[in-house]
């Protein structure tokens, strides 16, 4: 059974038909990427999975269980965490309070502590800055914090929305390394990226979105060599 199964969802912003029948699956242990231009519906797809935006039609299933009846905060308890677009860290909370909020859905103190160690191991910079207020971190550090915060929920499925946005190329590379590392430790990842080249270099499979529809679906390998993708999203002619 697939970890995540999205079947023919239609989502709207008011009257705007943003997703026109998106279907995708993510198997356990995979990194799957959604690529596409601005307004293609990548973020909307993630919002529809987390329940912040409820699809009007179609199904979202996590390990076979329909997610539609659950509120966004209840879906976190099912094992889905998200690194939102633009990082959205709590600027007035300290780094460690931000991480505490990530672990909000959990109760075992010892497990939380173990995960905190793991996050600090992954991002030593966060440990140095744990008493600093989130808003004073640099962009790269904020991305680390947003990622660490999502990991504190100990998710089985991690949704990441544009982790490379606004970061210097060096930082982008290190963030992608961390994503691979997180995945190797057993977290399934659904990655939304505009930086298609980077995303396809670490993903197992990819979906290409355009104006609310999936126009291509293949292994990352195949997508990288696909003529359409190369032209439209990789900037290679």
């Amino acid at each position, binding site marked *: 059974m697939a970890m995540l199964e999205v079947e023919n969802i239609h989502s709207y912003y008011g009257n705007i038909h943003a997703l026109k029948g998106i279907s995708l699956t993510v198997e356990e242990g995979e990194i799957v990427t959604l690529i596409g231009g601005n307004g293609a519906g990548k973020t909307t797809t993630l919002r529809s999975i987390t329940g912040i935006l409820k699809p009007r039609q179609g199904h979202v299933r996590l390990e076979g269980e329909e997610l539609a009846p659950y509120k966004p*905060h209840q879906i976190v308890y099912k094992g889905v965490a998200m690194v939102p677009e633009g990082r959205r860290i709590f600027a007035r*909370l300290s780094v460690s309070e931000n991480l*505490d909020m990530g672990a909000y859905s959990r109760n075992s103190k010892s497990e939380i502590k173990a995960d905190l160690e793991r996050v600090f191991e992954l991002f030593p910079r966060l440990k140095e800055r744990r008493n600093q207020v989130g808003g004073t971190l640099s962009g790269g550090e904020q991305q680390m914090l947003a990622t660490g915060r999502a990991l504190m929920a100990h998710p089985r499925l991690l949704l990441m929305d544009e982790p490379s946005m606004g970061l210097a190329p060096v930082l982008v590379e290190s963030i992608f390394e961390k994503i691979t590392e997180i995945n190797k430790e057993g977290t399934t990842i659904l990655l939304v990226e505009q930086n298609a080249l980077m995303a396809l270099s670490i993903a197992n499979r990819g979906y290409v979105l355009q104006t609310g529809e999936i126009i291509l679906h293949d292994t990352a390998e195949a997508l990288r060599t696909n003529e359409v993708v190369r032209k439209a999203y990789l900037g290679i002619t």
Partner: protein
Amino acid sequence: MATAVQTRAKRTFRIGRLIRPAIGVVVAVFVLWRLYTVLASQSFGPDTWVRFAISGLVLGSVYAVIALGYTLIYGILFMINFAHGDVMMLGAFAGYFTLEAFNGAGFLNKNLPSAIISVVVAFIVGMSVSLVISIALERIAYRPLRTAPRLVPLISAIGASLFLENVAQLTFGVARHTYTNPEVIKRNIGWTLMVGGKEVLVAYTGVLTFVLSLLLMIGLYILVQRTKMGKAMRAVAEDKDTAALMGIDVDGVIANTFAISGALAGAAGVMWGLHMGVIYHYVGFIPGIKAFTAAVLGGIGNVPGAMLGGLVLGIVEAVAPAALGMPFQLKDVLAFSILVLVLIFRPTGILGEVLSGKKA
């Protein structure tokens, strides 16, 4: 045409820049001049000043407790809960009827423990009633309007305020009710301080009010800063969608915030009754508006700011009429002048931070 408009805009801008300092100078000169005349005339002895200061501290601590409710709700929903003062009024009535009942049963003044129990129960009942009312307000009057423009819940709050006042008037009548304090904390007894050879009464109810207010403020501060619930409240205040993505039940946290605000207002109501003595259906209005002023003065949305603002406003209100040689009836005018001055000179309040575009 374009240049004419431009120069006019420039000129008004220039004059506008002068207005603030001019008002500042006028106010400062006026205050200093009045202060000097009053102090030079020595119309009040030191005992009077101490008396004013004490009454200001007590009043201020009640304002602070009410102001916390405004600030908590503003912090999380960016709305002014104008019905908050009426939540306090209903808490005051709940405490009143509790004490009446104990008195009627002959329990209130039986002995010291029974008096203590009565007062504690009055506080618990007052706080619980206000807590329930506050949660109900959120459910009925505000939650359905969560996504509406910001003016809409404000109007709903004013409506809720009028509704509660009228319900209270219909239920309890227009008569003024006098709180029945236990004999041990009658309003006119207390410790006596000797200041400048004259006696100054420090009423037990005043001390009780002040100490209890401080405890409530400390408790709230710890709750907001240290507990998981408090952190969740702060997270929700900052970003509701992201908070939900952390697994925080946003509606639950908002309901909790209203519950805490309500309980604080209820405690303030009972303190008001015990110390001031008289309550009626409209008793929450002025303290409510004053506490709102206090919250703005301290920086709305800021918890220590509300505490500081409340104390400052209480002291100003008690001391300023005498210090400026004005009739005491003008104390409300002075309190609200502070609101105007704060809005002119420091719109963010004493401890406030600059509002981000999202909140402003």
